[in-house]
């Protein structure tokens, strides 16, 4: 164990290494170039992602401060004005309402719902997933079956039904999206906890007489939390898409402002005469979701300090 760490640890300076080791070095060089490429790719993704998400998020956050007309103020004299017309950067809709203002104010609602939904689904998912993974046996069976059952269903019908029954208010829609998303978090957390609970420190804690619940809460969950939290950005992207789909189908929030899906569905009737009504909110959705997806992807691909041999090597080099 110590011998390879010493020889390999001498790293690039080991020019006097016997030729028998040359192949190992070559392979390492290739590895490093691959890792370097992957790092630059992930950095590129992070940058593009951050920029395209912020292009959408910053104006949304500033919507109240920008000099915009009221999003619900109708102006029947200026219906279906084209973009870049006087006072309306992105034009107006069929009731003369300013499209940019509507998109930004609607975006606040969409984003709020998305973030809340991710928090709720994350909580449900981490709790149920870690319980299933840690306790195993029948608890695991029940939760896993529930999870599988839900994942094998075309859920949108069910979500539409819930919204139709309980009304399209923001809490209902948030809840519905959270319910749609928890299985993903739960599955991930469960698999992470399954690995974690076999580690010696859990056995040690148990030997010390710690209650199982305490071991789970204080030791296991904090250890898996970082890995599990990487999925959050991807969930946020999905939540925004799901909200827009619900809203397009007429199951989105109406008050205080219509959200993006609703604006697009209104615009669908005018697609031949007023292309901007469909295009503009769509571009907002796409930019935001691409941005968040790329951020999530870039974070996931970012080469981490890997355990095992590689960590050993890098330690050797630092010394």
């Amino acid at each position, binding site marked *: 164990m110590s011998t390879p760490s010493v020889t390999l640890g001498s790293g690039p300076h080991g020019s006097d290494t016997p030729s028998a080791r040359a192949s190992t070095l070559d392979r390492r060089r290739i590895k490093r170039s691959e890792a370097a*490429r992957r790092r630059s790719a992930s950095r590129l993704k992070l940058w593009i992602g951050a920029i395209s998400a912020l292009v959408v998020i910053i104006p949304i956050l500033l919507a109240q401060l920008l000099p915009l007309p009221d999003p619900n103020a109708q102006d029947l004299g200026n219906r279906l004005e084209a973009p870049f017309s006087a006072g309306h950067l992105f034009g107006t809709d069929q009731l003369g309402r300013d499209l940019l203002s509507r998109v930004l104010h609607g975006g606040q609602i969409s984003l709020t719902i998305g973030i809340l939904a991710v928090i709720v689904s994350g909580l449900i998912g981490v709790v149920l997933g870690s319980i299933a993974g840690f306790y195993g046996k029948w608890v695991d069976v029940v939760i*896993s079956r529930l999870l599988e*059952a839900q994942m094998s*269903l075309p859920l949108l*019908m*069910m979500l539409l039904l819930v919204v139709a*029954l309980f009304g399209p208010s923001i809490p209902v829609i948030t809840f519905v999206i959270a319910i749609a998303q928890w299985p993903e978090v739960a599955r991930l957390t469960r698999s992470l906890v399954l690995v974690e609970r076999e580690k010696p420190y859990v056995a040690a804690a148990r030997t010390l007489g710690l209650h199982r619940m305490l071991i789970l809460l204080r030791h296991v969950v904090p250890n898996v939390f970082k890995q599990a939290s990487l999925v959050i950005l991807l969930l946020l992207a999905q939540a925004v898409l799901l909200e827009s789909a619900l809203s397009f189908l007429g199951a989105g929030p109406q008050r205080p402002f219509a959200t993006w*899906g609703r604006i697009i569905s209104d615009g669908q009737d005018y697609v*031949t005469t007023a292309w901007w009504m469909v295009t503009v909110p769509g571009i907002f959705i796409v930019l935001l979701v691409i941005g968040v997806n*790329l951020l999530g992807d870039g974070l996931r691909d970012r080469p981490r300090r890997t355990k095992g041999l590689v960590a050993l090597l890098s330690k050797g080099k630092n010394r």
Partner: protein
Amino acid sequence: MTYIVKRLGQGVLTVFLTVSTVFILIRLAPGNPAVAYAGPLATSAQLAQVRKQFGLDQPLIVQYGTFIRQLLSGNLGTSYSFQAPAIQVVLERLPFTLTLAFASILLAAIVSIPLGVWMARRTDTKKELGVNVVSIAGQSMPDFWTGILLLSVFAVVFPILPASGFATWAGLVLPTVTVAILQVALISRLVRREMAANLAAPYLTIARSRGVSERALTWKYAMGNSAIPVFTALGTRFAAMLNGVVVVEVVFGWPGVGSLIVRALATRDYPLIQATVLITALLAVAVQLVVDLAYPLLDPRVRLGKASAS
């Protein structure tokens, strides 16, 4: 054999849970189906009549019992708005949805498998990064929006394809493409991951040193081992894809189950909603079952009895 029984049992359980959830949700909700059916101008006598007619005056548990009994005999009540058996109304629409769904998954498979292989052979190059970013974009577009854009380009600006409905087979093109875009983005990334892992595996180096051609290496050796996860994914994606189909059906006025449920929700047509949820759930579960049972055809190592259900 026991495996098949177990999987069937799971499927039945899933469907049963779905239907029960629907039943409970409907009864928990504010709003009254009798009012929805009889209209806002109905007198209280008429309302009572309607309630009695649909059994809504019974206690919940009795209603549930009736519901389960009817369910087992394949009868989900009469649709309020169609005045016809709900199951029948849904089944009439089902072929349209199935056509769209299978056309989409076929298109998605045809495009995404070669694309994924292409990406896997060029992992971590600039080209691959480009395609990767494009596929993330494809994954990030709301399907209804893509649908409307495609529709306005290919049916309005250049009127070469029909905009809506299902009069000719050409009407299938735009909805299918719309549904498939998201699936291509997702499946090609999966194919890439599986293939990249297999292409880097030691057995492939050995095969290469024996002089097997690159083409055979990719398509026979690596693909043979990637097929199962990819095929499973196609099965599990089917349920998620039905969601997309629902939305896209509404965009294109497709006469399928999706546009039916949106209408049923607007009129609070409870039997119809239940029938729709039940039949789509059955469909998704059945597709997944078929995929699971087809494993041994793809991988001779898998014996159904030994496969673990997780």
